[in-house]
């Protein structure tokens, strides 16, 4: 049995705990022995991206202290994984950050990689649009980048494509940013919401019933815009969708 720790980012814990519960259920269904003993609230990404480096270092240090005990840490968030892997080692150089960077995985990346399950058997009879957060897509390279002339790809894309009954809806600008961007969402609120609206327009314009992402932070923002517009779109985290499809 593979032993893994589930690391739940601060905002998922509070705003979307169902994504964390789905991640746990899914990992257990796939035969993992999941520890819930990872106890640090945040990796410090919000501070780091805002330039508040000292605070980012403080908070990341708490995270690293919690991560030493585990051989694999799974996060239901591409952007936090990206921060851990690409920024924290420079912020807090040393064995602890190198270890954390090595053992931390985004959920789909973990299932397809270390778990060796690139696709899962399941059933989800809906029209689904996929949104990969930019840090997952271009930072972790978990999807194609049209800038590099790559077709859509990556673990989440493959898993969605393999589910029975699921229709993946093509988007006009599949890899355009949704406009969340951390503090950008409140620092540049008008551009942020304009980008989010355009993303949702692309999604619903192609007749999607469900919008799914591996990044709960993008979803927080997109869901807010969808609710404001009383949209019927169902906004889901990839863990929730996979858990429901493989039940």
């Amino acid at each position, binding site marked *: 049995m593979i032993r893994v720790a589930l690391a739940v980012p601060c905002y998922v814990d509070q705003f979307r705990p169902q994504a964390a519960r789905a991640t746990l259920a899914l990992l257990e269904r796939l035969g993992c022995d999941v520890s819930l003993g990872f106890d640090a609230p945040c990796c410090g990404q919000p501070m780091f991206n*805002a*330039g508040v480096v000292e605070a980012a270092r403080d908070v990341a240090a708490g995270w690293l202290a919690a991560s030493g005990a585990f051989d694999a840490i799974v996060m239901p968030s591409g952007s936090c994984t990206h921060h851990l892997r690409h920024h924290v080692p420079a912020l807090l150089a040393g064995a602890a950050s190198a270890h954390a960077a090595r053992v931390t995985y985004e959920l789909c990346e973990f299932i397809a990689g270390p778990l060796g399950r690139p696709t899962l058997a399941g059933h989800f009879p809906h029209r689904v649009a996929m949104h990969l957060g930019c840090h997952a897509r271009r930072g972790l390279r978990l999807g194609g980048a049209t800038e590099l002339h790559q077709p859509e790809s990556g673990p989440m894309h493959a898993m969605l494509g393999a589910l029975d009954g699921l229709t993946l809806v093509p988007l006009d600008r599949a*890899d355009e*940013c949704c406009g969340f961007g951390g503090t950008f969402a409140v620092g540049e609120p*008008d*551009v942020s919401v304009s*980008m989010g*609206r355009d993303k949702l327009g692309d999604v619903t314009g192609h007749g999607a019933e469900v919008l799914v992402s591996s990044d709960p932070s993008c979803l927080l923002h997109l869901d807010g815009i969808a609710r404001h517009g009383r949209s019927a779109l169902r906004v889901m985290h990839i863990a929730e969708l996979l858990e429901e499809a493989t039940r």
Partner: protein
Amino acid sequence: MTGHPAAAARFLDDAARAAWHDQSLWFMRQKRDRGSALPEWESLRFAGSALKAHAMSRLADLLEEFERRATANGVVVHWARDAREHNAIVLGILRTAHVTRVSKSKSMLTEECGLNPFLEAQGIEVVDTDLGERIVQLAGEAPSHIVIPAIHWKREEIGALFHRTMGTPAGETSPDALAAAARVHLRDALLHAGAGITGANALVAETGGVVVCTNEGNADLGMHSAPIHIACVGIEKIIATRDDLGVLLRLLARSGTGQPVTAYTTHVTAPRPGAAMHVVLVDNGRTARLADAAMRTALHCIRCGACLNTCPVYRRSGGYSYGTVIQGPIGAILAPAIDLDAHQALPYASTLCGSCVDVCPVRIDIPAQLLAWRARGAAAGRLPRGYGIVFEVLRRVLGTPATFARATRWARRVQRLVPAAWLSGRWNPWTRPGRALPVLADESFREWARRERNQP
């Protein structure tokens, strides 16, 4: 709000226009995608990045080599430490030759140095001969995009401007008719100019040559019809060899507009008989940038405009929202070096989506430099208003599991007791533009785990 966020909000007030702007630039991005779909594209980008890094590492040697060869070819080479010296040198050349009218092709460097207003104040008439530049010049504006200066102008508006300034028939909006009128109008300026000023896309050290790319041929007309050609060039445009140039030219045109090569690519190495040629080499902060290890690759920029076209923020906020000569992502990492106080908000005008680094033909890691500028600004006490306090609170809240649990319990109490409408007031930037507040769950994951899984 002030600065970029406020200007962007004003730009977005006209939703239809903002959507049109976004779509026009996205179209350029798609042309770039098609034009750059070559098997060797990524190798070209690596080569472009490497040859620029090489040139910057030997900047002084290559510039001196350029000066030697250009001088031997009969070109007069000038050195300008800053914008003021640059403008004075150009004025000196014009005064000595008694020139009162000049034509000027596209040059972001002369925009940077404020050459037009400077010369005009000295009684010298300057006519910009690039069509887009002429449009904004006639309108009394600055370019809003480094490659497509009048991208924010609609055809009908250009028709009205030309009607007012060139006497085209009222209501004329056909691009062909307007371009024909502009051609007649510009030809007059080109033929009567006492000097032709151009920028340069590259300086080749091994030949002493200046390379100018345009799609309209206006730079060629300007430099070849006037008795004096003045090329105003930033020193970072130097490259070592002609072979290097081949790589850059392919990258430039395909990234900018998706064309295999610009319509006119001119190599000038010497003045024609009877004419004079000057090259003004301008530093204006470039050597300081070179000395800044974390930021120096910004000097590799070939001003193709691809990062502007791909930037979801630029597309939805317009060139003027940046308040800088160079706009968009590259502008946001160049401007803080000039004045951190004035431009501290620009590094925040990005979601860090990373599209710019993936389109950049010379692979400048713009997001990394945006982050580095944010950190420098913050360290210098230049955080955007409100950030400092928010992050101090967050640092404490997120510091330990116990503080986090306590703070979030309080937040939920507030959410239960305070009406949602109060929390979504005009003061709240999250909700104001039309975005519902996220809802704190009744039970957090950690609380659930404690209850269901006996976690401590």
